[in-house]
């Protein structure tokens, strides 16, 4: 008889032990008891939900947007319906700032709504990059840096810190407290001038105030049924770009705009700025024109002096000529680039706004992010 290797021997022993255990179990239980135990096992198993995170945690490309947003929907549903949720990041090799903030905000909201839910995850794989094919784990670094593992109370054993995410900071609040926004901007390196910080602060405080004042008139329509009126902010800085993102998980601009302003006023914006449909993207674009339309009207009508924030968002693109502003809300996205910036890439779903020399464009996605993300991307050379 052929001598078994050590591995084969161990395998045969394990099989034997399992078989013996099964026979003992059968001997000591009746068929009805076994059926009852099997049913319990299935029930327990169904209380453990698994969610596979996409390979690219990203909402910049339309394809990745659809996949990532449907992952978030699945994640929310799984946490709602199960005691334990396991997120598998085994395929995730890329992450972008906006998607990272959205994931953290959703997780923060879920752990607040379901304090007894247990969320665990596998760690994303390391990938090789660059000339020397060095191993890097950028997804894990980002999630660790912006507090995802801390939120789900899972220790991140690896201490890899990718150099490009070292100056990524995230926080949240429930009131428009300028000191919170400033604390993140203060974490930026000293070479960023005070004037630049003030311009970023101006946009940030307006975006946060808009979230607090307008984003949460009613519970979010996502089946969670909780009222969590917070905003989240992320500041990211690397060798190439400075990114500032404000996020809320409210009902979205396309839902609040028609409720906050009379139809006659919105019609005027539509006429003045050639907005021909009621898609989410066009309603976001309309919201950025509220101030100038209001100023235009103030000589003839008495309107409340609200709605200045949209102009502050637009001013960032004036203050930093190569910057890009992106406002995403529900299914829509509005893009505004500074005059010296390269026009954004053409795609089948992107529509450039006439008369803006391709500095403004809109895009409608198939899935809703169920909230609003306001993002400024400023090239470091422009600061």
């Amino acid at each position, binding site marked *: 008889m052929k001598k078994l290797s050590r591995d084969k021997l161990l395998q045969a022993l394990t099989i034997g032990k399992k078989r013996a255990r099964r026979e003992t179990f059968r001997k000591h239980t009746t068929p009805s008891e076994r059926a009852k135990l099997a049913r319990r096992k299935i029930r327990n198993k169904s209380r453990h939900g698994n969610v596979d995170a996409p390979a690219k945690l990203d909402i910049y490309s339309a394809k990745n947007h659809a996949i990532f947003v449907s992952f978030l929907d699945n994640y929310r549903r799984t946490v709602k319906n199960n005691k334990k949720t396991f997120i598998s990041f085994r395929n995730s090799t890329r992450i972008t700032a906006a998607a990272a903030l959205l994931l953290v905000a959703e997780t923060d909201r879920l752990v607040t709504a379901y304090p007894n839910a247990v969320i665990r995850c596998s760690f994303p794989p390391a990938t090789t990059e660059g000339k020397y094919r060095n191993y890097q784990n950028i997804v894990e670094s980002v999630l660790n840096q912006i507090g995802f593992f801390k939120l789900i109370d899972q220790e991140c054993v690896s201490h890899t810190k990718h150099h490009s995410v070292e100056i990524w900071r995230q926080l949240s609040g429930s009131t428009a407290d300028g000191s919170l926004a400033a604390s993140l901007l203060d974490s930026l390196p000293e070479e960023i001038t005070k004037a630049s910080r003030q311009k970023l602060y101006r946009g940030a405080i307006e975006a946060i105030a808009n979230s607090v004042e307008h984003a949460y008139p009613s519970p979010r329509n996502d089946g969670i049924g909780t009222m969590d009126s917070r905003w989240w902010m992320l500041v990211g800085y690397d060798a190439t770009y400075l990114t500032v993102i404000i996020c809320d998980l409210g009902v979205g601009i396309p839902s609040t705009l028609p409720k906050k302003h009379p139809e006659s006023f919105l019609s005027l914006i539509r006429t003045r700025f050639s907005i021909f449909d009621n898609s989410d993207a066009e309603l976001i674009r309309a919201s950025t024109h509220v*101030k100038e339309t209001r100023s235009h009207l103030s000589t*003839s009508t008495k309107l409340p*002096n609200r709605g200045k924030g949209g102009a502050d968002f637009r001013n960032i693109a004036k203050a930093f000529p190569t910057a890009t502003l992106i406002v995403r809300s529900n299914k829509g996205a509005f893009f505004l680039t500074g005059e010296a910036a390269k026009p954004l890439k053409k795609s089948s779903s992107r529509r450039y706004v006439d008369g803006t020399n391709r500095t403004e464009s809109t895009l409608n996605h198939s899935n809703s992010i169920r909230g609003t993300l306001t993002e400024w991307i400023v090239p470091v050379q422009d600061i």
Partner: protein
Amino acid sequence: MKYINVIDFSEFPGPRYERIGPNSGEKFRETILLPALRTAPIEEITINLDGTAGYGSSFLEEAFGGLIRRGIDHDTALKICNNLISKEDDSLIEEIRIYINEAAESAKNV
């Protein structure tokens, strides 16, 4: 001479209304600007905007444009702009002037 340093009110000027967040334009107007206007002649009030983290337009509109809505007449409100100091960003002074003018125009059309 009455000298108002916004940084003494807050280093982090906030949103329009106090119900939205702390250090709002509404609070600045009610606790600093209006009491100062009641106790000193307008020509003697100097407001220094420098040193803060920055200003959202809602803060500025509510603080200064809001003076008109609280009954301060247009000329008096505009005189404040003559004694504003903003060395860090001089465009703020023009912006405040626009808010005061817009608020006055709105009030005229009631």
